[in-house]
């Protein structure tokens, strides 16, 4: 394996939504060298690959950023960081206007105002949102982009970031990248639980299966503090295609009905988790299948739905046309997805301060990988990318570069090469992945148990995941692609391990479905805390932190080791 070294001022890991926007923001700082490293190609990588339907986080006329904070807080039953939500909300509209300037098509009325969809959304054509972002990032003179390099580890000494290690996904090259500050924008984690379609279409899931939780895993292993992993995200989606439902629900005002035709929307509550729970309960009580009532919409509405889905989830349009029954003729069946860890929807991720600095000095996190700040969506990820970029630039200017004291390059390279040289493996990456998904499904609240778990089951899950982690060290890779798949699996296993610890740590059921603990089926007053974690001496330690609320702002004070 060839070894390459790169030196930069600010390293951005993951050229997705937050990563590209951080790059665009840093384009203003001409004296700072910036490198974006992306495991695929920034043009279509990450959540935005197929396109998105709408801007889901926008402060519409008559509303304030504080209204958005209140909404997100209510939806998460209080477990949010209000300081993070507010600093994000204050930037939502500005980043939206920036996107329009870059070329995003946004619907406007006669007076040139954005047309709202509901309280917080605006209408766009989001099919090409990722190429727009990627192009703008590439235009910045001081920003370089390195595609097809997968980052596996941070370089951290004395709790100070110094760079990262990775390898090329096709060519036998390993990389050491030294940087004075690092922004992590690797997105959330999918593929932990057995999916809705475990067979041929196993990757027809909602969240990108290529966001494997690498950023979480690197941070965890480097001793960074994580928060609220137990607030899993489960999406209510169109059956089989796992396409978004909001477009139908809000677009043509479709009601949610059970198999008997009864509207069950208000029966279980209206928070995101309650909506999922409602559908699960209706099915469990024998009143399924559940649908979005679209029968009877006009042909024109149907055509508009076909187009809207082609702009973000083409499978759904293909399915409608292929079966010969569009939504005007047949209601759309809905189901809950498998659980994900995604800090852009719920509050799981890095524990950060308002500048999005993690508990590791010089390491910042933005987008789905950053915790405490749910309901971010596209614009929230952009806002956090901007905040993190500004803060990283400030950090770089204020702190001299600290060279690495202990050279571990050879060790890392040997670790990669060991998988490539191994010719004694019987178990395969695919097998271990399926086993992990089975374990999580059955013992840590997957689809097959209606998302429920008990303390006893979680302890079993923990034991089994630990074993899989050990087994994964003995896998073999035929080539660089095989190596990538091993590291994707290992990242997921680390995320599973921490997730289980968090699920055990929250001894209540605050959110149905998202964290449904049958040992503690009720909500508890003691649950009004953050469940945080940190890896110390090979063990995950859970710590409870007081809520940051009512205008308070959190600052890291106990980050030093």
């Amino acid at each position, binding site marked *: 394996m060839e070894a390459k070294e790169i030196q930069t001022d600010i390293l951005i890991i993951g050229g997705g939504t937050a990563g590209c926007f951080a790059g665009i923001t840093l384009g203003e700082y001409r004296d700072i060298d910036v490198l974006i490293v992306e*495991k*695929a*190609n920034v*043009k*279509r*990588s*990450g959540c935005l*690959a*197929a396109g998105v*339907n*709408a801007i889901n986080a926008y402060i519409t006329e008559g509303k304030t950023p504080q209204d958005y904070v209140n909404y997100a807080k209510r939806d998460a039953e209080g477990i949010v960081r209000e300081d993070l939500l507010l600093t994000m909300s204050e930037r939502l509209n500005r980043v939206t206007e920036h996107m329009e300037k870059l070329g995003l*098509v*946004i*619907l406007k009325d006669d007076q040139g105002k954005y047309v709202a*969809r509901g309280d917080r959304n605006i*209408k*766009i*054509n*989001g*099919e*090409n949102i990722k190429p727009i972002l990627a192009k703008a990032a590439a235009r910045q003179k001081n920003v370089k982009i390195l*595609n*097809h390099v997968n980052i596996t580890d941070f370089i951290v000494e004395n709790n100070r970031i110094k760079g990262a290690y990775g390898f090329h*996904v096709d060519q036998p090259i390993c990389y050491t990248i030294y940087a004075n500050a690092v922004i992590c924008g690797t997105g959330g984690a999918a593929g932990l639980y057995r999916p809705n*379609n475990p*067979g*041929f*279409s*196993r*990757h*027809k*899931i909602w969240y*990108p*299966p*290529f966001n494997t939780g690498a950023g979480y895993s690197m941070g965890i292993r480097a001793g960074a503090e994580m928060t609220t992993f137990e607030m899993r995200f489960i999406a209510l989606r169109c059956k*089989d*295609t796992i396409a978004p439902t909001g*477009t*139908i629900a*809000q*677009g*043509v005002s479709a009601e949610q009905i059970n198999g008997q035709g009864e509207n069950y929307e208000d029966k279980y509550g209206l928070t995101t988790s309650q909506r999922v729970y409602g559908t699960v309960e209706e099915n469990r009580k024998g009143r399924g299948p559940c649908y979005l009532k679209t029968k009877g919409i006009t042909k024109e509405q149907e055509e*508009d*739905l*076909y*187009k*809207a889905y*082609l*702009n973000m*989830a*083409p*499978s759904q*349009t*293909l*399915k409608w*046309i*292929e*079966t010969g029954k569009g939504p005007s003729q047949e209601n759309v069946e809905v189901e809950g997805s498998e659980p994900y860890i995604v800090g852009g929807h719920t509050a799981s991720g890095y524990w950060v301060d308002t500048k999005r600095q993690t508990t590791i000095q010089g390491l910042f996190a933005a987008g789905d990988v950053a915790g405490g700040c749910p309901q971010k969506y596209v614009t929230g990820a952009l806002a956090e990318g901007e905040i993190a970029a500004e803060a990283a630039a400030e950090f770089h200017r204020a702190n001299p570069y600290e060279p690495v004291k202990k050279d571990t390059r050879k060790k890392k390279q040997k670790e990669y090469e060991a998988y490539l040289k191994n010719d004694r493996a019987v178990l395969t990456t695919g097998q271990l992945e399926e086993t992990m998904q089975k374990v999580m499904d059955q013992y840590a609240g997957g689809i097959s148990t209606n998302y429920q778990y008990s303390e006893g089951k979680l302890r079993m899950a923990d034991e089994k995941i630990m074993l899989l982690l050990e087994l994964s060290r003995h896998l073999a890779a035929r080539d660089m*692609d095989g190596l*990538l798949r091993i590291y994707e699996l290992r990242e997921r296993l680390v995320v599973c391990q921490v997730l289980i610890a968090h699920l055990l740590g929250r001894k209540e059921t605050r959110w149905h479905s998202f964290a449904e603990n049958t040992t503690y089926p009720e909500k508890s007053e003691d649950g009004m805390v953050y469940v945080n974690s940190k890896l110390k001496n090979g063990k995950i330690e859970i710590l409870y932190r007081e809520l940051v609320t009512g205008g308070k702002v959190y600052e890291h004070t106990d980050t030093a080791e």
Partner: protein
Amino acid sequence: MSIQIQQNKCTGCGQCIEACPGNLIKRGEGGKAWIRHIRDCWGCTSCLKECRFGAICFYLGADIGGRGSTLTVRKEGDVNIWSITDREGRLQQIRVDQKKANQY
């Protein structure tokens, strides 16, 4: 659900290999593209959009309701022209103007 690459149409330009967000497409012996991880396609259609030679089509697996139809897309100016061909060969096209916002 996955994609199929027609070897007779593929010129080996490599655009799809470059674009796939999951690094699922590789270059084969003859320099042409092939999908190495057929079960791992996310269905984002990025590769279809990148291929200027119309060599890639998308389909739904039978496990999620696929009945043998294929989907392709071609760009004409600001319009994406999506074509769905069913298993009997019947064609249906939907034109989506990229300068127009979604109604929903």
